[in-house]
C-alpha cells in the first residue's frame, strides 16, 4: 500500500478534542459534516486547506484523550490518508487501524509542513521526497497491517466474520 502526499505539521499531544470537538461529535453520524471542523481549534483553516491524500504530521502522543472514533473518521473524511507521529495514544492508534486510516510511528522532527512524502507500510518505507531523505519507521504488527489492508475492521469482519489473526 503506497501512499504519497503533502504534509501539514502539528505539535505534541494533539488530543481528540482538537481533532474533532465533543460539541460536534455527539450531534451527528454524518462524517462529512464533522470533517468540516477537523483540527479547528488548532488551525481554523485546516479543513479548507487539506487536499485528498495529504498527511498529518505531529510530535508525541497524537490522538490522546477520548475514545471517539469520530477522530480518525473526521480526518479520513477530510481527505487525510495517513498520520505520522513520533508516538500515538493507544486508543487512537487502534481506531485508526480499525477505520482504515494509516498510522506511521517515526521520528517526525525533520519533516516540515508542505514536504512531500512517500510511505509504504508493507515494505516499512518512508521517504521525504522534498528533502531526499529516508526515515526509519516502527513496523506495524502483521495483524494490524492486515486489517488496514482490508480497509479497516468492518471490512475485515465482512470478509472473515470474526478476527483472523492467521
Amino acid at each position, binding site marked *: 500500500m503506497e501512499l504519497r502526499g503533502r504534509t501539514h505539521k502539528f505539535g505534541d*499531544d494533539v*488530543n481528540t*478534542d*482538537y481533532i474533532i*470537538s*465533543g*460539541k460536534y*461529535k*455527539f*450531534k*451527528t*453520524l454524518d462524517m462529512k459534516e464533522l470533517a468540516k471542523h477537523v483540527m479547528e*481549534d488548532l488551525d481554523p483553516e485546516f479543513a479548507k486547506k487539506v487536499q485528498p491524500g495529504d498527511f498529518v504530521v505531529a510530535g*508525541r*502522543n497524537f490522538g*490522546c*484523550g*477520548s*475514545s*471517539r*472514533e*469520530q477522530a480518525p*473518521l473526521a480526518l479520513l473524511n477530510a481527505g487525510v490518508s495517513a498520520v505520522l507521529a513520533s*508516538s*500515538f*495514544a*493507544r*486508543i487512537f492508534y*487502534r*481506531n485508526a487501524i*480499525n*477505520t482504515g486510516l494509516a498510522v506511521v510511528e517515526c521520528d517526525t522532527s525533520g519533516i516540515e509542513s508542505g514536504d512531500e512524502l512517500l510511505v509504504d507500510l508493507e515494505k516499512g518505507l518512508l521517504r521525504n521526497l522534498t528533502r531526499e531523505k529516508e526515515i526509519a519507521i516502527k513496523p506495524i*504488527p502483521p*495483524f494490524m497491517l492486515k486489517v488496514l489492508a482490508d480497509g*479497516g*475492521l*468492518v471490512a475485515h*469482519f*465482512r470478509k472473515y*466474520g*470474526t*478476527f483472523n*489473526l492467521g
Partner: protein
Amino acid sequence: MGKTIAEKILSKKSGQDAYANDLVVATVDFRMGQDGTSPLAIRSFEDMGGERVSNPETSAFVIDHSAPSPLEGVSALHKLMREFARKYKMILYDVGEGVCHQLMPEKGHVGPGSLVIGADSHTCTYGALNAFATGVGSTDLAAALISGKMWFKVPETVKFICHGRLPFGVYSKDLILYLIGQVTADGATYKAAEYTGEAIQALSVDARFTISNMAIEMGAKAGLMEADEKVWEWVRRHGNGSFEQVTSDPDARYAQVLEYDVSSLEPQVAKPHRVDNVSPIGEVAGTPIQQAVLGTCTNGRLEDLRIAASILKGRKVHPGVRFIVAPASRRVFLDAMEEGIIQELVRAGAAVVTPGCGPCVGTHNGIPSDGENVISTANRNFKGRMANNKAFIYLASPATVAASALAGVISDPREFLPKEVS
C-alpha cells in the same frame, strides 16, 4: 517467568500463555458503549453484517453523555440506541441512571479478574476492582458485540508504589494528579499501570476509582489494583457475580517501578490546558473562578459529595460562581439525599443536574463563556473540552472545588474543612 496482573488476565481470557507485547484474541466478560460512541458502533455492526449480539445479557448501552437530550440530532441517536438494545435484548441504562463508569461497577457487571471493554476512554476506572478494563473505539465495540471477543496487544506494566498516608485535606484525586504531573500525559502510553502500596490500601474503594479512572490521562491502557477485603465487600454489596481475583507475581517483569512517599503531599491542581500541567495548590490559589463543577466519573460518588457538603454546610457559594453538581448515578443521588447531602449542597447554592456526565464534555449543562475560569472535579481540561475553546479549566479534588466555589477564587481546602473530616 512471573506475570503482571495484565498478563494474567489476558492469558486466562485468551487461553494463551501470554506475556507483554504478545497479540491475543480474548473472550470479553462485559461490553459497554455510551451515547457518544454507540451510534457509530451500531452503524459498524450493521456494516459488518452483524445478525446477533453474542452475549446480550453482558452487553450494555448507557445514555449518559447528553442526557437528557439537548438537541434533536442527539434525540435521534438516543432513539437508535434504544431500538438496537431492544431488538438485540441488550441492557440499556437510559437518561438519569448515571455515568457509564459508575453504573458498570455499581450494577455488579464488573469484579476482580474481569475482562471488560467499553467504548469510552475512562473504562480503565474498573481497574480499581482488579478488572482489566480498557477503552476501545466504536468499531471495536461492534466486533465484540458480534464475536464476544476482542484483540489485545498485551501491555507492559508500570508499577506505582505509594508509601505513607495521605495527609489531612489531601485525597486520591490529588495523588493521581500528582502522579500524572510526574510521569506526564504519555508517561504510560501502550502500558498498563498497577497502583499499590499502603497509601492505596488505606483508600476507600470510591477513592480508588478516582485513581484508576485517570490512568488514561497518563496514556495507560488499564489502571490496575489488587483486590483486598474492601474490594470484595464492595463487590458483594453491589451484585452477586462470581469473580476470581488476580495478583501479580513477585517475579513479574515491569517496564518500570516507581516509588513515592505521599505523606507530605499537598492538594494539587491541573492547570489549563493539560492534565499533566500540575501544581500544588499554593501556586494557583487566588485565581478567580466563575464556575465550579462537582461530579463526573472521576469524582461524582457519594464520598465526593459528602466531602464537598462538609465544606459547604451552612455556607453560601460565592455570588460570582455557578456551582453545578452532577451525582454520578441515581443511586448516588438517592444515597446523598438520604444523608441530607443534596439538601446542604442545594441550600449552599448548587444547581444539581441529572446523574450522568453533566457539563464534563460540553454537550450541555453548563458551557462556560469566553475567558471564564472553571474549576472541576473532572479528568480532562483540554482546550475546548467544555465546548468553549476560550474558557480555562482547572482540575482538582471535590474539597478544593467546594472551597473554591465558596471563596470565588481557587482555594486551599484545608482552610475550610472541619477538622474531623479528612
